[in-house]
């Protein structure tokens, strides 16, 4: 009864299968659909989805398998020794045409006004394999309500739905929320929410990407653009430290949407709504566009060269009169690794101050172990402890990985309050590998919990949810007062972000070099205004107008996440590239060149100013980054098993 597989000598865990004459040794348990992809044979699909269990309901993938009386769905048929598959024969072609006629039977054929036009599998496969005409009179078609809002983000056109079950399985298998289900049966079947109530999920934005047709669409993106006039840049979501891979689709110098870009080790092709729908924010028009110098006489626009010369001169003055430690350097979590690297070099090598940071909070005793657990390794854990709700608030897609681990690998997920009592923690016993996930602000507790769990032969790995797209990278490359690149202890009593601002207000620090204040400016409040008022000198590289740009003695325009290239490091230490999706809103050179020129003004000649060159310098200094390359994890932070 079961599909018995005769053992294949030699048993290398593979079986020999022939697809359209191409012989292939496929791994046991592989689906014919995937085996076909491996040998470069295309099989059209609708219900099959790489991240979901097979259901074989659309019947689009029917293929001929020798010795089997009926055509078989490639998406649900497993390879077996000696299996011979045909995808190009008459019966297969007829079946495909037949299935397409069925799928189009009750379809409104409204492609011209459909947002999916141009990236719709129904459209594409119909052209390739479908019937020329519909034999179904329009008047006989089943009708459903069109353009039904399922929430403020998602719209459903039931008439376009081909009932592939993907959205239903998404809510069942991927998020577990079961917000969308099937209702009624037969040709009256439709997808629906309970009693028509709106979707509440924080992951709705994935639905239009899961839907193979134009049934589920983004309300934000309605009629915005056709795929063929979009420019696409491969980048990383700027919203948090999780490092979801995205495509930034732009048109006419404006970001139109963030689309997911599957990285199985990180996002597993899912984005959270906070990240996805942040796209339009990057089109804001109020920006710092020109360099300026502010004197008693007021503010005047100047050339970049002039501004930098002025900045260099004034910084040297402060250093000569009050010493290097009268200068504070503040970057931000939005600095790329390269920017953070050069900024800490400017601070340490060019200015010689030990007061530098990338955010306000202090990080006493930050250690590599805090980042040992990899995102994908969550699935290998027999249990995972999540401290408080912050981790999943900070990095929402983490929730989906936890659900996957639970569902596919039986991982026990314990969501505990961050001030959990020891007894509860000790209750979690007999584990092979336990993950402990906590937000930056719960590092101490996480360390304690990990130590409690570590008893016996249980291995414990921690993952700290850092803040901001590159909070982790800034720490790795040492944009910190207390740690040098690679977490080596730094000499001197450097001050953290808050302390720098306070010391400035107190007059101990006379000059500030600030690069990209907006991630922390709002949180700094009076400490910041006090500092800006007290400081003799504020050199600022800013992207958007704000307290810092307004108070800056020397102001230099900066570049936003979607305008610059470089690398950022996610919370698990994965070094990933970002690329410019829009031309810069300013004529100013890149932050890297700006810093290199500033260094020169401060007497340090010929620093690298190109992303690649700076990255090589980091790699040379940090073997971990050399090993990580592009897309790998900074390995030295992973304990060696």
């Amino acid at each position, binding site marked *: 009864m079961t599909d018995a597989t005769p053992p294949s000598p030699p048993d290398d865990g593979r079986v020999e299968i022939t697809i359209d004459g191409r012989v292939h040794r496929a791994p046991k348990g592989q689906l014919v659909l995937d085996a076909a992809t491996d040998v470069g044979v295309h099989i059209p699909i609708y219900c099959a989805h790489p991240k979901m269990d097979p259901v074989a309901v659309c019947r689009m993938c029917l293929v001929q398998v020798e010795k089997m009386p009926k055509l078989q769905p490639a998406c649900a048929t497993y390879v077996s020794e000696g299996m011979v598959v045909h995808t190009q024969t008459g019966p297969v072609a007829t079946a495909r045409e037949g299935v397409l006629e069925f799928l189009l039977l009750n379809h409104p054929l409204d492609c011209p006004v459909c947002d999916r036009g141009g990236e719709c599998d129904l459209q594409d496969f119909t052209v390739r394999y479908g019937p020329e005409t519909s034999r179904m009179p329009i008047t006989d078609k089943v009708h459903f309500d069109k353009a039904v809002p399922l929430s403020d983000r998602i719209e459903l056109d039931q008439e376009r739905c081909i009932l592939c079950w993907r959205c239903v399985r998404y809510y069942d298998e991927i998020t577990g*929320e*079961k*917000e*969308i*289900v*099937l*209702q*009624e*049966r037969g040709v009256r079947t439709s997808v*629906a*929410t*309970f*009693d028509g109530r709106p979707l509440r999920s924080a992951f709705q934005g994935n639905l239009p990407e899961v839907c193979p047709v134009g049934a589920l669409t983004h309300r934000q993106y309605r009629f915005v653009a056709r795929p063929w006039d979009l420019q696409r840049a491969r980048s990383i979501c700027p919203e948090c430290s999780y490092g979801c891979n995205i495509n930034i689709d732009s048109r006419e110098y404006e970001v139109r949407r963030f689309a997911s870009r599957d990285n199985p080790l990180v996002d597993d092709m899912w984005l959270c709504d906070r990240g996805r729908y942040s796209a339009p924010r990057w089109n804001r028009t109020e920006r710092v566009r020109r360099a300026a110098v502010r004197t008693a006489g007021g503010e005047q626009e100047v050339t970049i060269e002039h501004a930098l010369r002025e900045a260099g001169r004034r910084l040297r003055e402060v250093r000569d009169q009050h010493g290097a430690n009268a200068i504070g350097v503040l970057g931000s979590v939005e600095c790329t690794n390269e920017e953070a690297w050069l900024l800490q070099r400017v601070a340490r090598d060019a200015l010689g101050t030990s007061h530098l940071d990338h955010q306000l909070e202090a990080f006493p005793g930050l250690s590599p172990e805090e980042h040992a657990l990899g995102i994908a390794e969550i699935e290998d854990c027999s249990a995972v402890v999540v401290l408080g709700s912050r981790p999943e608030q900070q990095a929402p897609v983490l929730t989906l990985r936890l659900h996957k681990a639970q569902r596919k690998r039986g991982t026990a997920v314990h969501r505990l309050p961050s001030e959990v009592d020891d007894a509860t923690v000790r209750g979690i016993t007999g584990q092979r590998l336990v993950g402990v996930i906590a937000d930056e602000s719960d590092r101490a507790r996480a360390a304690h919990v990990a130590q409690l769990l570590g008893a016996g032969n249980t291995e414990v790995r921690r993952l700290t949810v850092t803040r901001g797209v590159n909070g982790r990278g800034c720490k790795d490359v040492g944009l910190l007062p207390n740690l040098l690149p690679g977490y080596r202890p730094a000499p001197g009593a450097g001050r953290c972000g808050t302390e720098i601002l306070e010391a400035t207000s107190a007059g101990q620090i006379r000059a500030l070099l600030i690069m990209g204040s907006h991630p922390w400016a709002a949180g700094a409040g009076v400490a910041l205004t006090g500092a800006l008022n007290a400081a003799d000198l504020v050199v600022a590289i800013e992207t958007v107008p704000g307290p810092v740009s307004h108070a800056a003695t020397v102001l230099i325009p900066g570049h936003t996440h979607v305008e610059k290239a470089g690398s950022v490091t996610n919370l698990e230490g994965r070094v990933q590239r970002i690329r410019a999706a829009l031309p810069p809103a300013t004529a100013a050179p890149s932050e890297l060149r700006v810093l290199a020129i500033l260094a020169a003004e401060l007497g340090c000649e010929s620093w690298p100013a190109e992303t690649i060159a700076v990255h090589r310098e980091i790699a040379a200094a940090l073997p971990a980054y050399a090993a990580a390359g592009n897309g790998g994890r900074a390995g030295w932070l992973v304990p060696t098993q």
Partner: protein
Amino acid sequence: MLAAQTRAEIERARQRYPSPRSAILPSLWAVQNELSWLPPEAMAEVAELLGIVPSEVQAVATFYSMYFKHPPGRHHVLVCVQAACALRGADETVAYIERRLGCPSGSTTADGMFTWESTIECLGACGGAPMMQVDHHFEENLTPERIDAILARVAAEPATHHGPGG
């Protein structure tokens, strides 16, 4: 919104199965027995009692043809028009009942006494065709006279929506 006794019946059903979810159909029958149909609030309550999400109950409830999504009349008449019955005059039976009740298949009489419909689903009494079910009881070998008698008898009885649960 459900009566204590209905909730108790649902709880008993839950105990009968290795998995609480298995009690959905019996629970929905219990609800229909009490309320005569399945309002969304009741589905939500069933979900809560079985520890699942309301949308799952809706998905199941709408799949089956015997649950009412709208309030029906006091009595329910179901006439089979599948082939075996049709061969023995089911169409004439349907025509007669429509005349007799004065409203089309799928509707409820003005006085709210009868909700009736002809169904293409074979009801398993082909040996006694033409046939109908009145409040889930089989009535076979129908003739206009028998139909009159049955409807008169039932009209005198109290409302009943009992399904396999009741």
